[in-house]
């Protein structure tokens, strides 16, 4: 078992999650047995290349997978503070906890701040709506709380700005609005799905700092989805490496970024431009991985230092059951 047997206080436990997309060209297995835990009050980064299943995993947690996608197996145990824990995958459509989950207990910040807000409603309306969806308060009260939250994420001149439309805001400002909208109900878990990818570098840094600061302030847990390992180093406590719909390695930031065990993780790290010596050709993931088998789903095993990894037997992986 884990290096020290001390049980981690996990707010989310994802187990054996499998998602299929049924398309005209056949069945695509988007997720194949994804499992990880999200420690309470910490930042968990999910890293991986495009199509590795990061966003699908996030959408499963929110239960907003849309057809043709479907959760076919697995469970997500959720233990919010001050509430009985429940399992997310098995919630029926009519279960009030499902609506409470979305935006109330868990909320999400998306990649595209330019299109994540409806252009026809005022900023205040869209942030206040998040409150009105989950609490019985007056419209005026909701707008006041929305204004407070917007100020907290760094939007000044609030009396004027709250009456403005999203298209009057810059990309960075819109992302602040989306973050305010996500945090205004004080969710237990904040999922950030590549929130800085569409922003320019200086704004990226500001938004990262904002998310990190608010997380410390509000004490919520964060799932941070990205393909940028530089961002992971800045923000994460724990890292989950995904590839082709599976989890390959889970560990602390230090473990995964300093001493990666899995050949794919090593490949990812070697492919960061800044790390290659000047004048040398940048390593690709493929050259680092070499002949190692990274596509077969080997069982996860826990190493002595507490990290979990899915390794082929020739690299010391456990035999398949």
């Amino acid at each position, binding site marked *: 078992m884990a290096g020290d047997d001390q049980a981690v206080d996990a707010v989310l436990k994802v187990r054996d999650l499998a998602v299929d997309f049924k398309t005209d060209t056949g069945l695509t297995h988007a997720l194949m047995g994804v499992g990880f835990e999200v420690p309470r009050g910490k930042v968990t980064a999910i890293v991986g290349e495009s199509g590795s299943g990061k966003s699908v995993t996030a959408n499963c947690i*929110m239960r*907003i997978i*849309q057809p043709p996608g479907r959760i076919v197996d697995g469970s997500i145990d959720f233990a919010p503070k001050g509430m009985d824990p429940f399992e997310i995958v098995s919630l029926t459509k009519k279960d009030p906890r499902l*609506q*409470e*989950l*979305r*935006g*109330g207990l868990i*909320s*999400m910040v*998306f*990649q*595209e701040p330019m*299109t*994540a*807000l*409806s*252009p*026809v*409603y005022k900023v205040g309306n869209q942030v206040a*709506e*998040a409150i009105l*969806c*989950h609490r019985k308060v007056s419209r005026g009260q909701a707008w006041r709380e929305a204004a407070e939250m917007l100020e907290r994420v760094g939007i000044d001149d609030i009396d004027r700005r709250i009456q403005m*439309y999203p*298209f*009057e805001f810059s990309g960075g400002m819109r992302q602040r609005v*989306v973050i305010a*909208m*996500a945090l205004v109900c004080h969710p237990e878990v904040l999922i950030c799905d590549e929130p800085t990818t569409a922003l320019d570098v200086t704004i990226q840094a500001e938004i990262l700092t904002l998310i990190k600061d608010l997380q410390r302030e509000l004490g919520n847990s964060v799932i941070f989805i990205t393909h940028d390992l530089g961002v992971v180093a800045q923000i994460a406590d724990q890292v989950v490496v995904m590839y082709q719909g599976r989890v390959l390695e889970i560990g602390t930031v230090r473990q995964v970024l300093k001493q990666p065990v899995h050949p794919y993780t090593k490949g990812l790290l070697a492919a960061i431009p800044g790390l290659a010596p000047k004048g040398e050709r940048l390593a690709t993931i493929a050259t680092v991985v070499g002949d190692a088998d990274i596509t077969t789903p080997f069982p996860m095993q826990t190493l002595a230092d507490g990290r979990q990894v899915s390794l082929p037997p020739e690299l010391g992986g456990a035999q398949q059951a």
Partner: protein
Amino acid sequence: MRSYILTRIAGLIPTLAIISVIIFIVIQLPEGDIVSSMLDRLQAQGVDTSEEYVQNLRAQYNLDKPMVIQYFYWAGNFLTGDMGYSYLFSRPVNELVWERLGYTLSITISALFFTWLVALPVGIYSALRQYTIGDYLMTTLALVGLATPPFLLALIFMHIGFEWFGISTGGLFSPEFEDASWSFAKFADMLAHIWLPMVIVGAGGAAFTMRILRANLLDELNKPYVVTARAKGVRPAKLVIKYPVRIAINPFISNIGLMLPALISGEALVGMVMGLPTIGPLLLQSLLNQDMFLAGSMLMWLAILVVFGILLSDLLLAWVDPRIRFE
């Protein structure tokens, strides 16, 4: 917003002026004029006309003056509310047009509402249930509706009404109310009759609008702002209406202006088939008889209606879509 409305209204004046010139030219295009067709008729009745009488007549209608002057006489009189005299009916054009314009407007506007009333729910249903039996059924119905010209639809309805139910579906009134003065009973009688032309005139537009709405909505349904709202916890029914539908209807608010001419010309044909007391049949008659004051006035009024309809739909769009308001 204020200056937007003002510039749009100011823009109407040159538009209508240009339209009036075009209408005037089109009316003058055919051989002969109102006097020559009057003379033809008189001669056919065996009445001899002196050269002097003809000259007087031409002078009375200003036909002895250059074209440009004739236009200004016509346009000037129109502006003062004098639309001239219809030789065909021997009545002032004013009376004839006002009598019928009201019916045309009622049918056209109610057809517009019918279009929306049908297209909105059906379009939303079709988009949300894409590629289901219900969607295919609605799509098929819409294609049939689009492919059937309104006058044919009118004939079919009248035939069915007469053969199967033994009722006459023509006209806007039952015979006993035809010449009666306005009363509540007459109004009720009109309502009982107007629904059929309304459905017939609106059917094509409803089918078209429903297809447009379905396509627009399918584009919007998976936009990030919809996903954001879903993740925010907005309830499913409210989510669809408040987010994607709200955006998807914008293009067809601006379509109202474009649908008006189609509705009015559709109404003209249906009016003839069903014998409705609307502008359409009168317009055809006046054109055939070169009753130029009558034809010109009616064309001008239809143009005014369409231009104001487009203005109205543009203002409506600016009202519902802040992106246009702020440009």
